[in-house]
């Protein structure tokens, strides 16, 4: 159930059997969600954090005119809102983009982990730092990258993140988002994303069709995106 989460953590550091058991014991409930369902409401007091088992979640904010900006995607193995443990009320919401299952981890259990498992606590601190790094990378995309480069960077990032949790077939992966979802990630319109996907396809770089991304030229795609996976901190650490 939390196997993807363990893969994500163990890609960076060791997780002892005791720590693993503590994580397993912290799950109070597993909940299933439909697509487009709000999982964490902005402004409400959070009493648990959400650990994604399968499906795709997003952090987002809405503007009054109906415009939505997705600020990060979450893949299986991610805590979507570990930061709600310290923030209590989030400034953004979290919703599903696909049907999803998530483990709910009560904040009191997280508190026990911080008291009993200092190394695991540092590892969790590290994962929230990765979220911050992803936000910075998206900020660069939204502020400075071309449309082509933004969409390319998104496909590169998700490929690497899904690799870590064993959810790619080499150069392809399930990504059951709509063009509108992608547009809300990269700050464009669905129509603009459609045109951008055509350009990426015609350049032989990547195809996004039927809820699946197939990368035909990884180096070319990474070049267009100026993608450097350093911000995802893939090297083993000793926290």
């Amino acid at each position, binding site marked *: 159930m939390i196997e993807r989460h363990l893969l994500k953590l163990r890609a960076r550091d060791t997780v002892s059997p005791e720590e693993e058991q503590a994580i397993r014991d912290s799950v109070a409930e597993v909940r299933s969600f439909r697509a487009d369902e709000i999982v964490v409401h902005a402004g409400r007091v959070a009493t648990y954090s959400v650990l994604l088992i399968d499906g795709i979640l997003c952090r987002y904010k809405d503007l009054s005119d109906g415009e939505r900006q997705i600020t990060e995607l979450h893949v299986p193995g991610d805590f979507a809102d570990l930061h709600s443990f310290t923030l209590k009320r989030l400034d953004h919401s979290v919703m599903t983009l696909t049907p999803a299952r998530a483990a709910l981890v009560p904040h009191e259990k997280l508190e026990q982990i911080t008291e009993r498992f200092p190394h695991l606590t540092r590892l969790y601190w590290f994962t929230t730092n990765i979220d911050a790094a992803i936000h910075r990378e998206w900020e660069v995309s939204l502020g400075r990258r071309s449309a082509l480069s933004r969409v390319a960077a998104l496909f590169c990032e998700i490929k690497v993140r899904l690799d870590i949790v064993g959810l790619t077939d080499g150069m392809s992966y399930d990504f059951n988002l709509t063009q509108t979802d992608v547009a809300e990630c990269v700050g464009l*319109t669905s*129509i603009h994303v459609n045109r951008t996907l055509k350009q990426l396809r015609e350049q032989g770089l990547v195809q996004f*069709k039927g809820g699946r991304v197939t990368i035909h030229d990884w180096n070319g795609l990474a070049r267009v995106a100026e993608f450097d996976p350093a911000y995802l901190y893939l090297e083993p650490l000793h926290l």
Partner: protein
Amino acid sequence: MARYHFHIINGGGTSEDAEGQELPDLEAARAAAIEGVRSLVSEEARLGQIDLSGRIDIADADGNILLSVPFNDAVELRRNEQSW
């Protein structure tokens, strides 16, 4: 709600929209097309060349073209005017 498909036809070629979007009515679809053109044109403006000769064909789920929205309808251009 109905599904509308937005095919882009301009100097960059034709982009079929196989996926489409669920929208309340054709008026909302036209608004989405206008917003889409503005998004495309803003990228062109960054690169210094704006092509307003294209159009967006809005089609229903059966492929019938319901409305054609010229890129020209999405923006108002002012040039060689000095009103200040």
